[in-house]
């Protein structure tokens, strides 16, 4: 089975010798959902940018088999163009790749329907709620049918109820095309709920502290948050996280 992406002993050093990441290893198989958890400043967003090809490692190697147009990123803020309505925002990746306008917009409309926003296609971002804007952002990420979907703390700015609904949405949407997903978060329960494999990182520079495998069906069954495996995984991740904080102190 070929990997979608691999980080091998990847290190990122920013100017003035500040090491942000690594050495850090990560193998990403097709269709798997991996969460990167860690305190802020642990280099998880840096790892994500390496996987996206938006940044080059200072040392080590990054291998990506998902080419241009096969990788999508969802940022912490919805990152929509404020001057364009929802459907134009979602159509953007297709239009940039040269697909003609009418076809791109038709596909964007379908993507909006999948996130439950068919009726809001001509609404501009300022008129959308935070959760709706994030859904538009998800629709834009999925409209290209990516092989690799990178989520950089996408729910951090939302309220608890919206976060839970969106977590379910992510699974439902993932189930349609089964991209490999890397989900960056600092929320332990969210990581345990969303991902099959949860990697805890230590801060400055970001390194692997522990890995928890969550062998429960996806999308998650009802009441999953109160189940034994979920609680157990959340505990394990919390322990790793506490260890990573101690290591940093």
């Amino acid at each position: 089975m070929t990997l979608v992406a691999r980080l091998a002993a990847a290190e990122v050093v920013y100017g003035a010798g500040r090491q942000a990441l690594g050495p850090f290893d990560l193998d990403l198989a097709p269709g798997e959902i991996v969460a990167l958890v860690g305190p802020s400043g642990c280099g998880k967003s840096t790892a994500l940018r390496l996987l996206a090809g938006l940044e080059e490692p200072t040392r080590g190697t990054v291998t990506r088999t998902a080419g241009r147009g096969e990788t999508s990123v969802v940022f912490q803020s919805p990152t929509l163009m404020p001057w364009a309505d929802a459907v134009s925002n979602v159509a953007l990746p297709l239009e940039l790749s040269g697909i003609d306008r009418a076809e791109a917009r038709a596909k964007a409309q379908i993507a909006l329907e999948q996130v439950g926003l068919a009726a809001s296609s001509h609404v501009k971002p300022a008129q959308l709620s935070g959760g709706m804007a994030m859904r538009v952002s998800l629709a834009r990420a999925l409209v290209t049918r990516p092989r690799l979907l990178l989520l950089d703390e996408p729910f951090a700015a939302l309220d608890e109820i919206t976060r839970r609904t969106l977590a379910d949405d992510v699974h439902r949407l993932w189930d349609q095309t089964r991209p490999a997903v890397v989900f960056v978060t600092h929320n332990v329960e969210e990581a345990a709920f969303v991902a099959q494999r949860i990697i805890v990182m230590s801060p400055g520079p970001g390194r692997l502290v522990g890995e928890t495998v969550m062998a429960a069906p996806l999308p998650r069954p009802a009441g999953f948050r109160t189940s034994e495996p979920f609680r157990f995984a959340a505990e394990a991740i919390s322990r790793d996280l506490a260890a990573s904080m101690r290591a940093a102190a």
Partner: protein
Amino acid sequence: MNRALNTLAPLALIAVLLAIWEAACRLTGVPAYFLPSPSAVAAAMIENGPLLLGSAWNTLATALLALACASLMASCLALIIATNRLLEQAVRPLAVALQVTPVVAIAPQVVIWAGLAHADRAIIALAVIVAFFPIFSGALTGLKSTDPDLERLFDLYGASRWQKLTRLRLPSAIPFMLEGHKVAGGLAVIGSVVAEFVAGSGGSQGLAWRILESSNRLQTAKTFAAVIVLAIMGAGLHAVLETSERAILKRFRGR
């Protein structure tokens, strides 16, 4: 109720101040060439109405023409410069120097260059210089104020430089450019009035010339009338630009 009060309050204050002024003029008997009473100013305004309106139109037309020229030049230059860091570094100090130099300081020379027979050209050129900077600065700031995450997104999807410029940087610049035009509109009026003062010839028939002319003839009431027309015109232009800025932004952002 509150809205009505808000509109009435400044009008009431103006009425009170005018009443005090009128009373003071009548009681002290100060000569009209020194300080005309509000009623004398009003009479001068009515008497010279057509003349003042015609002059106001000349000044306004000059300012609007200057605004259009400045808009075209400043936007084009900002667009060229925003694509090249080194070019921006080179041009910025010159643009700042142009901005901080008072227009009165360079006006006499510009009048000479334009030729004494063509004072109108010198006035437009000077107003353009004054209106140039806010538009240039706004456009440049706007072109560089794109959301870094949106920029990453465009990179991720392999957008070309042209696509990034037309689909990301130009739309991002629009709110800044609108603000720049609003400021520049007011400055264009000031610029054309100051330039007209310096040109100081009857070749131009704007409000500044009316002020100079009446002031030289000690027709102080007429001077006041011209200044008031000028103030009303400036405020009107500002209001029009502000309203259109808001309307365009509302369309642009959908809220």
